[in-house]
């Protein structure tokens, strides 16, 4: 094609959507490049503090606050953590989060199922009150909790803290799972009943497997909420049940702040959250109910 014919053909080609050479990329494509650049900038801005913390954790303890760009990465800060009480606190955190997650699921999942499937008087109000438990500011609850716990002897215990976390996680479970259960067509359960399932069996063999991705996502949220709790753990634990986030504050001492340990502990506390967030993403995008019904 000569330049002349190319010029002549351009309007036509543009109209039929074919682009002769040397033409600028279509507008949506240019647009996308801009979007990508913006997203990247935003990502860097968000990740910067975390990156900063991780590099601090990897510096030799003496020069944690050094601005030098080049340094010899070392695990000394992590080793120092390992020597102290931090592993115990980390274990406490794992225990509290797992326990409270398991308990909230055990109580919240059946509750959500009943609230979704059974029509009874006051159903909407019950569901709302369950959500309302999550709205109360923690500070309004801590003093009663503290006094009650001192009375029953649950303060500074893993089980006690797990129970508190369960109280605010149950509402999450109930509300998340209601949505997931509602998305499962009732006729699948009815088919199961006719095939010979009781109500419980239909739930276990049909409804629950179909809600599994939602269940996994909910579990991860519960775990993370419990894992991230600082407030209740700070007030309701003293020594034996201290969790990782609270333990970090112990490095902020009167004699000086142990920045290396703080950064290392912060990095460790962040890891499970990161791992679970990636997991939850995978589960949330997966749809399982495709193809069961005619549409």
């Amino acid at each position, binding site marked *: 094609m000569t330049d002349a014919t190319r010029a002549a053909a351009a309007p036509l080609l543009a109209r039929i959507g074919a682009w002769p050479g040397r033409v600028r990329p279509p507008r949506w494509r240019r647009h996308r490049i801009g979007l990508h650049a913006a997203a990247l900038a935003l990502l860097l801005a968000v990740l910067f503090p975390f990156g900063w913390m991780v590099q601090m954790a990897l510096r030799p303890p003496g020069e944690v606050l050094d601005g030098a760009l080049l340094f010899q990465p070392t695990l000394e800060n992590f080793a120092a953590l390992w020597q102290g009480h931090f592993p115990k606190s980390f274990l406490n955190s794992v225990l509290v989060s797992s326990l409270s997650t398991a308990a909230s699921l055990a109580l919240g999942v059946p509750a959500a199922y009943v609230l979704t499937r059974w029509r009874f008087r006051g159903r909407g109000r019950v569901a709302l009150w369950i959500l309302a438990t999550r709205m109360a500011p923690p500070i309004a609850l801590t003093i009663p909790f503290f006094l009650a716990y001192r009375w029953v002897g649950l303060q500074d215990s893993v089980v006690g803290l797990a129970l508190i976390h369960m109280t605010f996680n149950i509402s999450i479970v109930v509300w998340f799972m209601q949505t997931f259960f509602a998305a499962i*067509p009732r*006729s*699948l359960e*009815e*088919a*199961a*009943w*006719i*095939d*010979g*399932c*009781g109500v419980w*069996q239909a739930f276990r063999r*049909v409804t629950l*497997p*179909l809600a599994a991705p939602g269940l996994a996502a909910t579990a991860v949220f519960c775990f993370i909420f419990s894992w991230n709790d600082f407030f209740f753990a700070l007030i309701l634990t003293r020594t034996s049940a201290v969790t990782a986030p609270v333990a970090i504050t112990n490095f902020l001492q009167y004699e000086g702040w142990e920045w290396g340990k703080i950064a290392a502990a912060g990095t460790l506390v962040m890891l499970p959250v990161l791992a679970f967030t990636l997991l939850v993403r995978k589960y949330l995008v997966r749809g*399982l*109910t*495709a*193809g*069961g*019904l*005619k549409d």
Partner: protein
Amino acid sequence: MASVTIRDLRKSYGSTPVLHGVSIDIADGEFVALVGPSGCGKSTLLRMIAGLEEAGEGEIRIGGRLVNDVPPKDRDIAMVFQNYALYPHMTVARNLGFALTLKGVDRVEIAARVARAAEVLGLSALLDRRPGQLSGGQRQRVAMGRAIVRNPLLFLFDEPLSNLDAKLRVQMRAEIKALHQRLRTSAIYVTHDQIEAMTMADRIVVMRDGRVEQAGAPLDLYDRPANRFVAGFIGSPAMNFLSGRIAVNGGASFHLDGGGPSLPLAAVPPGAHGRPAVLGLRPEHALIDPEAEAALEVTVVEPTGSETQVVGQLAGQPFVGVFRERVAARPGDVLPLRLPPAAAHLFDAGDGQRLV
């Protein structure tokens, strides 16, 4: 196999009554089609028989046993849902065998029965797929298969063929029919396709607004509909209804409201002279006869090859005729029609009940 007896069944959703006292008897091994317009309560009735809907008033007996308060799992019935309701997380094989697994049938036996059902329904190659990987017709057959592996007391079908294409529908119709002839399990088949009902059922139950309008053998319903509704519902194209008056002087005849010639009648109820009534005549019973006095003013001619459908006006009232011969008429023409008295039905002008 079992008989089913339904006595005076009533059901309301809140304050809206849906079934107003339905009574149906289904003999052991009978195939009954339940037909009626959309929203008349067919699915509701079926779901009550299955136990999915709480029984209101009345009785449901399966094989003589009162099942009003028996949960679905203990009724030993199989149901094919209007929307298939296949378990999306199970393979076709597991879908088919689920009921047997629950019953604790041993695995070898389950595999054998699933294989047999799959063979009958042409699903053998698909056993390892999940419902999401099947076409609509294949899903439909899995839904059917899930019912037949079980050997239940009763089959319930809720419009199982409603979203298949015409050809597959005819094919599945024949398959279901053959299946029933082999298994001889009582079945209730909901459909609003009256051809399906006519061709498959031993008996048809016609419902409207939560009531049974008529129950009987397909040809009985066709030949002697109990009222105007059934007459219009069974048969395609639908029966023509011409309003007018009965006259008895010597022989009985029918005077159309729009004037025109009077039509002879075969029989009338006693004392019917002057009584307003509706004359029903099926499109396929009208005959073209140059000697005849009734004149159809043609508006549309629809040849289908095997027959010709002519739509028009008879004494100002809409009328459709279906003829086996090719009709050369064009819109605007006048077609002389003979309406054989023996084929005519007379209905009350008010409540639509059959007069003779």
